[in-house]
């Protein structure tokens, strides 16, 4: 009895802590996860769901650092950097993935330089889209995903 009460109290504490933590997160963030965009099966649909438009301007001020041939489609290291004035976010789309929107990175004071590792189902164009002052800028690179031999 004593034990279970202690456990209960502990559980309560943890829950309270979590709530306190969650409420300290910016409201905007919790509201902003765009399920529709992340679940869209076509890149244009995902873009429309996310930005309200799929129209982008090609820009050479965005740089993608990614392999031409991925060693393993499950772990493709990529970096995106850009020098577009007033950039608010950088988003990554992989055209041939089942759900093309991979992730969106919101630069709330952060610099235009992010890195992560992504999954790619097959050979595809990877698009980096930068939103700045209400406009969308994009560049892309093809990444080949091949069937491995024996690997590593």
């Amino acid at each position, binding site marked *: 009895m004593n034990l279970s009460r202690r456990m209960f109290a502990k559980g309560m504490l943890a829950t309270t802590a979590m709530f306190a933590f969650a409420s300290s997160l910016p409201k905007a963030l919790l509201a902003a996860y765009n399920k529709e965009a992340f679940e869209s099966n076509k890149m244009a649909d995902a873009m429309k769901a996310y930005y309200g438009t799929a129209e982008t301007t090609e820009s050479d001020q965005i740089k993608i650092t990614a392999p031409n*041939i991925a060693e393993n489609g499950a772990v493709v*290291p990529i970096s995106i950097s850009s020098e577009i004035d007033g950039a608010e976010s950088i988003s990554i789309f992989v055209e041939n993935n089942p759900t093309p929107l991979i992730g969106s990175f919101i630069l709330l004071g952060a610099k235009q330089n992010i890195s992560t590792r992504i999954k790619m189902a097959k050979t595809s164009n990877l698009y980096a889209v930068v939103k700045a002052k209400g406009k969308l800028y994009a560049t892309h690179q093809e990444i080949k995903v091949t069937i*491995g031999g024996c690997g590593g």
Partner: protein
Amino acid sequence: MKYLILTWALLLTSAVAFAADVNPEQDRQAYQKHFTEAFKEVPLKEFTNGVYAIDPEGRAQWEAIEEFPPYEIAIEKGETEWNTPFANGKTYQSCFKWPVAEGLRQHYPYFDAERKMVVTLERALNECREANGEEAFGWKKGKLVDLSAYVSFQSRGKLIKVQIEGADAKAAYAEGKQFYYAKRGQLNMSCADCHIYNAGNNVRADVLSPGLGHPSHFPVYRSKWDAMGSLHRRFGGCNNNIRAKPFKAQGKEYSNLEFFLTYMSNGLPYNGPGARK
């Protein structure tokens, strides 16, 4: 009884006669010479990076992963395990005469003359558990491999220096060597076919890695596995690739193979754990 003694005597003489032909040091020099000549631009030490010593496209991706490699999670978990006492209050350290901070990996594999068998680091760790009344962990992945990752990390930079002394050790080495060069499986290929004679060539999109340095960086986080795995797990994968039935991890075959293969890389530094595609 008489027969038994006779058989033993015969076996012993044949083992000795066999061992007389075994010259590991000569083998090692020839082996290393082959790779340094085949890949003139690659410094000897670089071979510990496997395929990334010779494949620039793969190397760039590997370096990006090394920025914050997933095996760090394994090292951390292994450290916690290492520092957690057994039920009897003793620790892993009590089983080893060398402090872990100075590295243990460089003392393995070794030939235990009394038991007439190759003892790998993973075996020593599990035997330590059993000696202290704990159950052994699985050999190929999970907790034992985390532990091995932590221990191996402490040995980074220490040189590989496998020793082969006595007829029995030489026999184990010779068996490992024969295994390495023997063709197996439905594809009729040997370890050497891929990792010596075709190192640097492609199997589909994969560049075959040079055999020199292979055992230096295990255990590895392999993207294909999405997890950590031991050297013997990888051996099993290779055998399966050539459609040969894999042997048991830590069995005689793979232990002797590890003994031979590690000896071939004597003089190179340990750099495990590693990250591979």
